[in-house]
């Protein structure tokens, strides 16, 4: 029974393959000397192994290799440019890709903001230009309206003064021209109303004094007198006294001058 337990049948293939360690090999050989069962087993296995070693190895025909090489060539050709692309892909690592993306985002943001700034500047310029343009346009319209043959158009032109916070000389001159020379009372009255808002201008004061000497319409005369008194224009005293002396001056105008003169002095 002890012999049975020590059988080395399971080790015989490895023994024949010569892959056992020296120690194992010695143990197997020692057992084989004593055990006939295992010796028989070994001899039978040796026959089988020999048959396997001597087994005729089937060799495939040359067709196999030829076909394989053709298939390989076909695959290489079909790859073509695809290879170069994949190789490029492997060259660029993720870090540089991230940098590329970051750079493009930065560029996008920067150009967006730059664009915004330029756009704003441009818009401001445009707005300014447009405002200037519209002011000039209004002025042109106003001036041309004031030259119109129709009295109502001239009034409309004069009324445009409301649009100008700081009218230039051309407008003042145009209004003064209307006040001094327009044949129509209402136009002169409207021009006076318009100019009365700019009494700080020396030119307007001069125009008023000049108009006081020439104006025959009582309502305009009264308006001028009141305005000149209000601003205490001393140069207006002479013309006013002259009006008092003139016979054709309306009595209520004289009353107005008499009331106003002491305030100037």
């Amino acid at each position, binding site marked *: 029974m002890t012999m049975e337990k020590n059988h080395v049948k399971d080790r015989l*293939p490895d023994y024949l393959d010569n892959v056992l360690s020296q120690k194992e090999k010695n143990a197997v050989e020692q057992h084989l000397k004593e055990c006939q069962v295992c010796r028989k087993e070994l001899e039978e296995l040796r026959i089988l192994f020999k048959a396997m070693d001597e087994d005729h190895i089937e060799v495939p025909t040359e067709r196999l290799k030829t076909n394989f090489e053709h298939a390989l060539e076909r695959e290489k050709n079909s790859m073509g440019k695809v290879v170069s692309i994949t190789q490029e892909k492997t060259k660029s690592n993720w870090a540089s890709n991230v940098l590329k993306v970051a750079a493009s985002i930065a560029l996008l943001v920067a150009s967006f903001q730059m664009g915004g700034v330029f756009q704003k500047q441009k818009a401001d310029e445009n707005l300014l230009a447009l405002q200037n343009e519209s002011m000039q346009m209004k002025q042109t319209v106003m001036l041309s309206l004031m030259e119109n043959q129709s009295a109502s158009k001239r009034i409309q032109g004069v009324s445009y003064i409301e649009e100008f916070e700081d009218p230039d000389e051309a407008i003042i001159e145009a209004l003064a021209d209307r006040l001094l020379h327009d044949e129509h009372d209402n136009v002169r009255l409207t021009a006076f109303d318009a100019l009365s808002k700019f009494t700080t201008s020396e030119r307007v004061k001069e125009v008023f004094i000049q108009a006081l000497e020439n104006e025959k319409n009582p309502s305009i005369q009264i308006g001028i007198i009141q305005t000149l008194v209000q601003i205490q224009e001393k140069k207006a005293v002479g013309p006013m006294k002259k009006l008092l002396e003139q016979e054709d001056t309306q009595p209520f105008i004289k009353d107005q001058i008499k009331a106003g003169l002491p305030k100037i002095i």
Partner: protein
Amino acid sequence: METLSDEMIMQKVAEGNLDLLKVLFDRHHQYVYNFLYKMSGDSMLSEDLTQDVFYKLIKYRSSYKNGSFLSWLFTIARNNLKTHFARNHKNHLSADVLDHEIIENQNEAQEEYSHLQSALNKLSDSDRELIILNRFDEVRYEELALIVGSTPGAVKTKVFRILKKLKEIYLENI
């Protein structure tokens, strides 16, 4: 190039160096062919299937993931064979094909099998497969375990058991 392992070469193939597949073909195609021939007993079929194995290496090269090349190679070969048998089995259901197959089988019988091959043919498919891979194609137990989905120790024990069985069949008819 001859000093490089199969795995190192296959890695380069997977990266796009297709020409190196020729080295692997030269190293292994006879073993693959012999495995298929001993399993099927049909030289023409084995040649076709071997060709298909290497076509698949070309096609699926990028799916190679550094594992044992030999295991991968014979796994493909085994699957090719299984697929072929499964397909043929289906064909057997048709009467016309059945007649055709019988004639073919008679032709096949004329291929002269060695005494050893006859003994091998008497083993079950799974037993025959292990013996052929291990004894003829020199696939080690570790790689064999990967192919059949087992452990090296279990595979070794099984191979020894089959060897004993085969030895008895072989000596019986000698």
